């Protein structure tokens, strides 16, 4: 049975963005993306989502903790 090209493209989304696809698979995904705005929108969204998650999840370390970590260093004398 013929696989729905958008379903196939959805399956390739994660490895595509992780750059884990073979050249042939990558070419297949890009060929479909060139002609399918449905998938293209969703790929762009996923890319932006990953960027947003990384940024939103970032929490800076308190300066006090950094100081405490420095104090764990072994004394040389």
């Amino acid at each position: 049975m013929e696989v729905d090209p958008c379903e196939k493209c959805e399956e390739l989304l994660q490895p595509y963005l992780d750059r884990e696809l073979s050249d042939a698979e990558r070419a297949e995904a890009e060929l479909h993306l060139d002609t399918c705005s449905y998938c293209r929108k969703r790929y762009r969204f996923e890319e932006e989502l990953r960027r947003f998650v990384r940024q939103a999840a970032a929490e800076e370390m308190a300066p006090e903790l950094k100081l405490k970590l420095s104090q764990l260093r072994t004394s040389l004398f």
Partner: protein
Amino acid sequence: MGESPAAFTGPKNDDARVAAMGETTPEADPRKLAEEARDRVRFEEEALDLADQVYRVARRLVSTREEAEDLMQETYSRAFRAWRSFQPGTNLRAWLLRILTNLNIDRGRKQQRSPDLQPLEEGDYYLYNRLEEAGREPNVEQERVDERLSQEDVVAALSAVPHDFRDVVVLVDIGDFSYADAAQILEIPIGTVMSRLHRGRRILKRELADEAVGSA
């Protein structure tokens, strides 16, 4: 995935062994002692330079800031004792995170783990489709995902992902580790990293959809 391949050897999570390594002294040759002191200082400085990056991952592996801070202190204390077991030239950030994830698992996390083996029907377009159905189609032309989702949504959704999946998502998507590094840090096969990552991201998107537009 900007890291070099992780050909590192992490320390075993064994207090006695680590402590013993820390107590080993080189031969009492002044020149060797000086070299040793210099190597140790360099190691400690490099490890401290990475603390911000290690903390960013640690913070999302656990629920609270306090837990992350305790874990960081324990990790660095152990790393400074076991510094000789680090192979210079390999990936120090991965080595530190291997200590940290081992400690985290040892802290009784196994007890709260329950593998998420429920079927997950949602595909990778799920979040976009849910936003679209709710009349909140993401405007990707303007790249404004932040208009649809808040920082709190992301934090809540991440913390709802079961630990085994979250560990991999956090290491790869927040820590920017390669699949190979994540596999070495967590001591699991690379195929398991890939399957947990795939599933973990889908769970994350389901949680984000629930945060953004309510449960289906």
